[in-house]
């Protein structure tokens, strides 16, 4: 990767890499926080129908245009995106918990526990992710609960693999072997040798889980298996816009999607910067 780090003129102004990374983290987090909190800031004002202002293209008054009932699309999109982000965060956090628990169990206990967990991960990888999501969301009865459970149950696999590998690697390292010989208890070793290695992996893994979780939540809602149409999550708004496409109201579909893309990008960016900061190879420089 060293070749890609070509220093540009901008980098000299923006300070060293560590500072830029910190700025990146702050900016990404602020962006996401702003979207999540936006419904409480802008209020419900834009959501009420204004039949005099129907189907208006984007303008200064309505940056995202208005829909077929005259509702402001920017407020609707922000409300929907905030809801999707919160659901995604909840599901991804649950998923990270499952992943960490099973990864640690597989790595430390070994034997048949490891074999069973590895097997479960393999089975999960052998089905298309979306089909698995649809099956689980359907089986638990759909709705918001269905989305949260489906997303939480299907995103833990790669994190579990990473943590299992990390634990196995640390476990076989010389200093841990030495610690054992010196009479340290397994708990002490876990606290002082495992946790410092696993925590950064967990943090980065968790942040990089969010974009997937949010995209899959949106996809499930879009095809109609997720949230009910009365709760306008971002996927529902996009699905509604499908009905008005042939009339040429392009902004109904384009603008909410841009917001979704930006949110996912912000998470990606946040994850990459946190990884840069936590990785000893790149954190100072």
């Amino acid at each position, binding site marked *: 990767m060293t070749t890609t780090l070509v220093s540009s003129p901008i980098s000299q102004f923006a300070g060293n890499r560590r500072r830029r990374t910190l700025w990146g983290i702050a900016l990404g987090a602020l962006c996401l926080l702003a979207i999540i909190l936006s419904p409480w800031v802008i209020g419900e004002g834009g959501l009420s129908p204004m039949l005099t202002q129907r189907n208006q293209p984007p303008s200064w008054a309505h940056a995202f245009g208005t829909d077929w009932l005259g509702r402001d699309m920017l407020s609707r999109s922000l409300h929907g995106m905030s809801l999707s982000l919160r659901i995604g965060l909840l599901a991804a956090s649950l998923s990270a918990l499952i992943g960490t628990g099973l990864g640690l169990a597989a790595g430390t206990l070994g034997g048949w526990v490891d074999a069973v967990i590895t097997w479960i991960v393999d089975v999960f990888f052998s089905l298309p992710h979306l089909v698995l999501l649809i099956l689980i969301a359907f089986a638990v009865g759909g709705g918001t609960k269905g989305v949260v459970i489906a997303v939480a149950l299907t995103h833990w696999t790669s994190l579990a693999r990473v943590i299992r590998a990390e634990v196995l690697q640390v476990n076989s390292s010389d200093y841990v072997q030495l610690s054992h010989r010196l009479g340290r208890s397994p708990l002490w070793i876990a606290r002082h040798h495992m946790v410092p290695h696993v925590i950064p992996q967990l943090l980065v893994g968790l942040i990089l889980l969010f974009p997937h979780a949010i995209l899959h939540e949106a996809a499930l809602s879009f095809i109609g298996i997720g949230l009910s149409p009365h709760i306008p999550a971002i996927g529902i708004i996009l699905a509604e816009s499908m009905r008005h496409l042939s009339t040429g109201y392009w902004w109904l579909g384009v603008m909410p999607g841009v917001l979704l893309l930006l949110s*996912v990008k912000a998470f990606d960016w946040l994850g990459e910067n946190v990884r840069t900061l936590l990785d000893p190879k790149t954190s100072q420089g």
Partner: protein
Amino acid sequence: MQLRRILVFTTQKLLRLGLLLLAVAIFTFVLLSLSPIDPVQAYIGADMMQISPEQRQLIAERWGLDQPMLLRFGDWLGQLAQGNWGTSMVFNQPVGAVIASRFSLSVQMLAIAWLLSGLLGLGLGIVAGALAGTWIDRAIRLYAYTLASSPTFWVALLLLIVFSVSLKVTPICCAAPPGQLAADVTFWQHLHHLLLPALTLSIIGVASITLHTRQKLIDVLHSDYVLFARAQGESLWGVIHHHGLRNLILPALTLQFASLSELFGGAVLVEQVFAYPGLGEATVQAALRSDIPLLVGIVFFSALFVYTGNTLADLAYPLIDPRIRLGG
């Protein structure tokens, strides 16, 4: 010797497939038996009000729903193994027939998308890797990173808005012009309806193969043997042709075969946007209208599909790299 190796390989693969399908069966069965969905209600649907509790009891007994779980699983597995996959309630046809007819429409789209995304991804990756650090490289990387995080159904929507609504060059829905019998659809009409969904799937599938190929090519270009070749006067594109491609093609192929799983998922969303009556659309129908036999059938079929992809990758390795032997 060669024959024996192929035999061992085939047996191994079939055994693994059997185990995998068994695992999927256990998983699906446990999931659906724990689910709050009442199978009798799902079967009868809206007519539920006209059925007395006694009749309901009778149906449950006839289906063996009062049996213990393990016995039911055995029964169900036996039926599946005999090829009785049940009847799809939405399409009122045997599940096997529905999957076969729907997949025959999807497979053309998937094949075009798979080939196109593989070639495009490899090409873009090589260009980006060879010109690493230039603005072309930056543009390609930006494109790949952006696509990697955009929602599939939204990209499909965008293309639909641009090409079908604004430019009117592609049809807005379905696999054939409306009102035309399936038998009368010409090849060109069919291709015309297929093109945009396939294109959507392929431009989304490009991201990971581009980024991996780029990274791999950069690694190759920094190796000692490339330095030596350059010192002997070989040009950059000569190096890529003689040293790069051999190293790139294997990981690219692995990725591309592994992407079949994502491709299948992408097809579900893309078919939904384009109202293309393929297997993905049937999946959504099955879940929305509680068609459990069809949904279970599709779950099995998708597992088989992904497994076939991985097996094909295993078969392709010895053809590309003679040092690799079948079955390890």
